[in-house]
């Protein structure tokens, strides 16, 4: 396992996220403080409603904290405007979802190319990067297939290629094996570990499967009722 020593990739500083649901104030994330060094593979564990996906969204810059600060490579996301957050997601973050979220009318190649289009990468530079990312997840033979023509595991690998294509520093995975059978789930986990090791990418994975997290992640962070229940040994 390779852990890099080049600083902190993600830092949450007393971060909270509350939202109103009717008359009730939901404290989805409450006063969470943690640090994730660059190159670490972290599993965020917790039961449903524990706040792990909300924390992941905050790290991704898809949501804003109600209070506290959340830093990605020392840049405070809470202080960014929506344009800067979009740039942060485009250049710094790769996201993989439980439901894959590939665009059904696009081929595998076009789905993987999409983040490059959004980032304004020149057309001439795109194809090489798309092919590299697809080679990484071993789907070279499925370039022109649409998502509906791929199996669940292949779709998740395609989503991984899409997340990698912009060469982000941080890969966020929200229940990446949630929709897959055990064997295919293991394949994806192996792929994630390989990405973490070969590309030295920081990975934060939300999961509720403790055994799998223990097998593949460097550290497990446990959340309960929006709070940090265990920091996996870090202070």
């Amino acid at each position, binding site marked *: 396992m390779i852990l890099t020593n080049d600083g902190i990739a993600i830092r949450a500083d007393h971060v909270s996220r509350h939202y109103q649901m009717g008359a009730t104030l939901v404290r989805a994330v409450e006063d969470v403080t943690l640090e994730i060094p660059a190159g670490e593979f972290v599993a965020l564990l917790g039961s449903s409603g524990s706040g792990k996906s909300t924390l992941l*969204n905050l790290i*991704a810059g*898809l*949501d804003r904290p109600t209070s506290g600060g959340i830093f990605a490579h020392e840049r405070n996301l809470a202080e960014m405007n*929506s*344009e800067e957050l*979009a*740039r942060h*997601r*485009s*250049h710094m973050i790769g*996201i993989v*979802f439980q439901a894959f*979220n590939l*665009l059904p*009318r*696009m081929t595998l190649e076009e789905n993987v190319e*999409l*983040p490059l*289009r*959004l*980032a*304004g990468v020149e*057309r001439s530079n795109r194809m090489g990067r798309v092919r590299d990312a697809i080679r990484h997840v071993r789907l070279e033979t499925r370039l022109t297939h649409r998502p509906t023509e791929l199996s669940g595991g292949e779709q998740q690998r395609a989503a991984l290629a*899409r997340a990698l294509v*912009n060469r982000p520093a941080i890969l966020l995975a929200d229940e990446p094996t949630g929709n897959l059978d055990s064997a295919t789930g293991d394949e994806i986990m192996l792929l994630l570990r390989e990405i973490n090791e070969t590309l030295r990418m920081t990975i934060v994975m939300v999961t509720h499967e403790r055994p799998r997290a223990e097998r593949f992640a460097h550290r497990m962070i446990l959340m309960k009722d929006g709070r940090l229940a265990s920091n996996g040994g870090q202070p």
Partner: protein
Amino acid sequence: MKFRDLIELAWRNLREALLRNSLTTLGIAVGVASLVAMLSLGVGLQQMASQRLSSSGLFDAILVAPRGNLRGFARAAGSGPADAESDRPLDDEARQALDHLPNVVEVYPEIRFPTEIRYQGNPYSTIVAGVPASARTGGAYDGMTGSFFSGPDADEAILQIEFARELSRQPDSLLGNELVLRYAERQALPAESEAGASESTGSSAGDAEEDASTGFSVVPREEKLRIVGIVETEPAAGFGGIGRGRVLIPLQVAEKLRAAQTNDFRTMLGAAPGKTAYQSLTVRVKDPSQVKNVEDMIKPMGFATFSLFDATNNLRLVFVVFDLLLGIFGSLALVVASLGIINTLVMAILERRREIGVLKALGAADRDIRRLFFVEAGAMGLLGGVLGVCLGWLIGFGMNFGTNVYLRRQVLPAITVSSVPWWLVGAAIAFSIAVSLAAGLYPASRAAQLNPVEALRYE
């Protein structure tokens, strides 16, 4: 995101909901078609009216007369104080002065006289009118059968179609044939005291010419003329020329004939001895826009002037209002179509909610999402606009076709009631895009403001 990528994504999205987007685009096309058809009708009618009026020779012409003759007109047209200069005679000297004014093409008197025509031995009573050379470029002779006069002094005649039909059941067969003009030539009587001097003028002025004699006699004459053309409607040769001349001859020939005219007595009594005097002269200018300037130069010379400058301005105003009303009615359909765009795009937001969330998660800024919806709205506007212009043109074509079928049945000449100029094509497409973009404002802004977390949760 680069513009080309934006276009590609928008195009892909439009193809995705093909039926709905096609119907929306068709709605825009119908709106644009209605706008184009309405405005093309306005433009066509305006062009027809302008063409007819300009070919009448009325709008690039100024009637010049001694102040006494045109006092009524002068007051109406605000020609200035009538007594600023005593009535200056309208003689050859004045004609030359007028001819030398800038932007003046031609200065000529009106020559029009009743006469008898002999064709194949049969007599026909009619009116002969002199046509200035400049009339050739006025457009009135564009659709004529045969040709215009070969020269300003050619012994040739152009017949008005009704008169040609009197001469022959097949008017076209008249071309190249000869007819004989029998007319009364005016001959000056020797002056009582200065007979010798007065005969030397040699002038052959038109309707109001008079020599230095104290009177004139009339002598019957004949002139052979070759028929070179036939015109559908009689083009006027200036003011007062509408509906009277049925045999048209070159003005120079008409002047040379010295034919006696109905107003000769009046002119003779008003003319100064030894001078050629005209009742009126028509000054033709290069362009109707020059009428006012030339009029302003003539008035200080001591003459009264009359032109239809104000009338043309009023006519333009009428057509602007007419076009505006047609445009408003035509635009109503486009406004309704724009509601279709809003509906389509709002539906697209609901359907693509999750996709918008994914795009945002992958790095799309609010601005990108907004622009994407804008481009989709604009593309529908562009396609609808192009299609609408084609449809509008077809409707205009149908209007022209239907009108001309009806006119042909009434034995009337063909006209163009609907015209689609290039500016209308461009303006209609631009307007369609602008309306579509305006309609896309709300959906685009709503899509851009979608919360990505909520959008990603949407099933």
